[in-house]
C-alpha cells in the first residue's frame, strides 16, 4: 500500500511538471493574445477581448490596435513550406535510399557537405549568398526564399529518411526481387509503405523547419517577402498581444498536419516510429 501511494504521488508530480512545462507557456500565450490591457502589477489582464485577433485576421482596422493583417504572410509561409517540403522530400528520398543501401566511397563527403551549413553560423553564409542571389534576380523573391528553405531543410530530410530506410532489412527487398519484382516495383510496394512512418516524421520535421525558418528568409526575402516568423520577429518585444496571436497561428498548420497524417496512416505505421 505504502509503495503504491508513493508511486502515485511521484506520477502526479511528474505529470504535473510536464503539464506545467508544456501548457504553462501555452496558456500564458493564449492569455496574452486576448489581453487588451495588462499592466504590472496586475496578476490578470485588466481588459480582455478579441481585438488583436480580429485585426490580425483582417476582420477590422483600428489604428489604436498595433496589429496588421497576417493573411499575406500566412499565404507566403504556406506556399513556401509546401513547395520546400515537396522538393526537399523529392530530393531526400532517392538520396537517402542511396546512402542507406549502397557503399558509396563519397558517402562521408556527401554527409559533410550537408552538415556544413549547420557547423558554421548561418548568418555569414546567407550574407555571402545575398550578392549571388541578387545577381541571379532571386533576392526578395518567393523562389529565392524557397531555395534557401530547401538548403536548410535538406540536411534533416536526408538524415531522418536515411535512418528510415536503414531500419528496413535488406532481405525484404531481396524477397521482393526473388518473386519477380523489379527495383521500381520493390520501391513502391515494399520499401515505401515500410518506410512510411520514417518518411512521415521526416516530412513533418521539414515542414515545421520551413514554416519557422527565420535567418535565411530574413537575409534573402526581406523586405519584399514576409513570412509569419518575420512578422513575429517585428512584433515581439514591444507588442506581446500581436506576437501571441502570431505564435498561436504558427501552431495551427503543424497541428493540422499531424492530425491529418494520423488520419491517413494506419496506427501500426506510427507505432513503428519508435523502433
Amino acid at each position, binding site marked *: 500500500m505504502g509503495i503504491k501511494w508513493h508511486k502515485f504521488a511521484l506520477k502526479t508530480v511528474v505529470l504535473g511538471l510536464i503539464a506545467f512545462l508544456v501548457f504553462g507557456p501555452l496558456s500564458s500565450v493564449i492569455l496574452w493574445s486576448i489581453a487588451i490591457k495588462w499592466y504590472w502589477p496586475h496578476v490578470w489582464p485588466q481588459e480582455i477581448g478579441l481585438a488583436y485577433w480580429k485585426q490580425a485576421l483582417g476582420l477590422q482596422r483600428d489604428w489604436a490596435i498595433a496589429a496588421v493583417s497576417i493573411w499575406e504572410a500566412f499565404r507566403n509561409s504556406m506556399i513556401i513550406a509546401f513547395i520546400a517540403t515537396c522538393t526537399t522530400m523529392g530530393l531526400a528520398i532517392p538520396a537517402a535510399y542511396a546512402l542507406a543501401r549502397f557503399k558509396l566511397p563519397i558517402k562521408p563527403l556527401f554527409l559533410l557537405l550537408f552538415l556544413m551549413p549547420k557547423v558554421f553560423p548561418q548568418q555569414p553564409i546567407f550574407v555571402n549568398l545575398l550578392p549571388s542571389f541578387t545577381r541571379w534576380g532571386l533576392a526578395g523573391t518567393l523562389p529565392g526564399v524557397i531555395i534557401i528553405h530547401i538548403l536548410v531543410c535538406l540536411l534533416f530530410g536526408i538524415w531522418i529518411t536515411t535512418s528510415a530506410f536503414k531500419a528496413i532489412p535488406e*532481405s525484404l527487398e531481396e524477397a*521482393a*526481387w*526473388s*518473386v*519477380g519484382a523489379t527495383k521500381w516495383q520493390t520501391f513502391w510496394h515494399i520499401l515505401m509503405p515500410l518506410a512510411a512512418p520514417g518518411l512521415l516524421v521526416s516530412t513533418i520535421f521539414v515542414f515545421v523547419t520551413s514554416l519557422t525558418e527565420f535567418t535565411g528568409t530574413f537575409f534573402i526575402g526581406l523586405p519584399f517577402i514576409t513570412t509569419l516568423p518575420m512578422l513575429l520577429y517585428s512584433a515581439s518585444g514591444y507588442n506581446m498581444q500581436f506576437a501571441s496571436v502570431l505564435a498561436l497561428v504558427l501552431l495551427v498548420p503543424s497541428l493540422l498536419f499531424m492530425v491529418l497524417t494520423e488520419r491517413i496512416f494506419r496506427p501500426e505505421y506510427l507505432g513503428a516510429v519508435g523502433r
Partner: protein
Amino acid sequence: MPGVKLSEVTKRYGKITAVDHLSLTVHDQEMVSLLGPSGCGKTTTLRCVAGFVIPDEGKIFIGDQEVTRVPPEKRDIGFVFQNFALWPHMTVHQNLAFGLRLRKVPKSQIKRRVQEALALVRMEGMEDRYPRQLSGGQQQRVALARALVLQPRVLLLDEPLSNLDAKLREEMRFEIRELQRKLKITAIYVTHDQAEALVLSDRIAILNHGKIEQIGTPEEIYQRPVSKFVASFVGICSFIQAQVIKLSSDGAVLSTEDGLVISTKRTDLTLGQSVTLAIRPEFAEVFFSRPANDVNVFPAQVARFAYLGDNVDCWLKVGQWDLRIRLPAFRAISAGQQVWVHLIPEKIIIISEEK
C-alpha cells in the same frame, strides 16, 4: 525442371575471397546442401545463384540458360531467408499473392494458387493474418509457401531453420525434404547444421575457405571423408597420426610415434607414408576387462565423460591420443578408470591428405 551449374565462380570482398573458383552441378530435382562453418562462403554462393550477388569471375547456369548477370527478378527462383523476410505490412494472402499479381495472374487463379500453396505447408485458413501474428515456425512455413507459389525453377534456402527452436527444427527438416520430393523441385540448401544436411540432402557439399572440400551423398561424406576437416565437421571424429610400417594383401599395418601398432584393411598405401586415422565413436569397442583378442586392442583411461541419457559421451586417453566414444548408459564408469579399447580394422577411416 532444370538443374543448376556453377563454373569457377569467384567472389571477392576487398582482400577476402569469399568464394574461390567454386564449381558445382546440381542435377534436376536434386537437393544439394552447402554445409560449412560460418565464413566458408556457402551463403555467398547461394546469393550468387539467386542473383543478389554478382560473381567477379565464373559462370552460373539455371537449366541451359546462363544467368550470371541476369537480375534476380528474371531468374525464376524461390528464395527462403533465415529471418523469414515476410513483408510485415501485408497479410499472409498478400505476401503469397504479390508475385502472382506482378505476373498478372487472374484474380480467381491467384486465390486458388495461394490456397494450394498454404495447404502444402499446412497453413490453411491463415490468409488474413499478419506476419507478426504468427509464430516463428508458422512464419517460415508462409515464407516457404511464398517461394513455392510461383512454381520456380529452383528453390534456394538460406539457413531457413536456424531461427527456430530445436524441436521445431527437427520436424521442419522432414517437411521440407518431403515437399521437395513431392514437388520434384531442384533445391540448394545452405546450412551450418550437419544433422540438417544429412537428413535433407541427396548430396552434401562441404565448403571451407570458399572451396568445396568434398561433395557426395550423406553416406559417402560420413563414411569416407577425404580430409580431417570433413571428418570433424560431419559427425564426431577422433584422429590418430601414424606411419605405414608393413604392407600385406590383408591390409596395411601402421604405427604411431608412441608405439601403438594398428592393423587396417587398406591396401592402397605405400610404405613409410604418413596418414591420419579417423575414428568415429561407433568404430571402437570398449571392454572393461582385457579381451582375449589382442589385435588393435589398447589399454585406455577414461579422461572425462558426460551422461547424455541414452548413452555416455566418453573421452578416452589411448597413449598420447584422445579418443571420443559412446558407452551404453547402464555401465557405471568413473574418471581415471582403466578400460580396453578395440579399434575395428574394417571401419577405420584413413585420410592421406597432402598437407
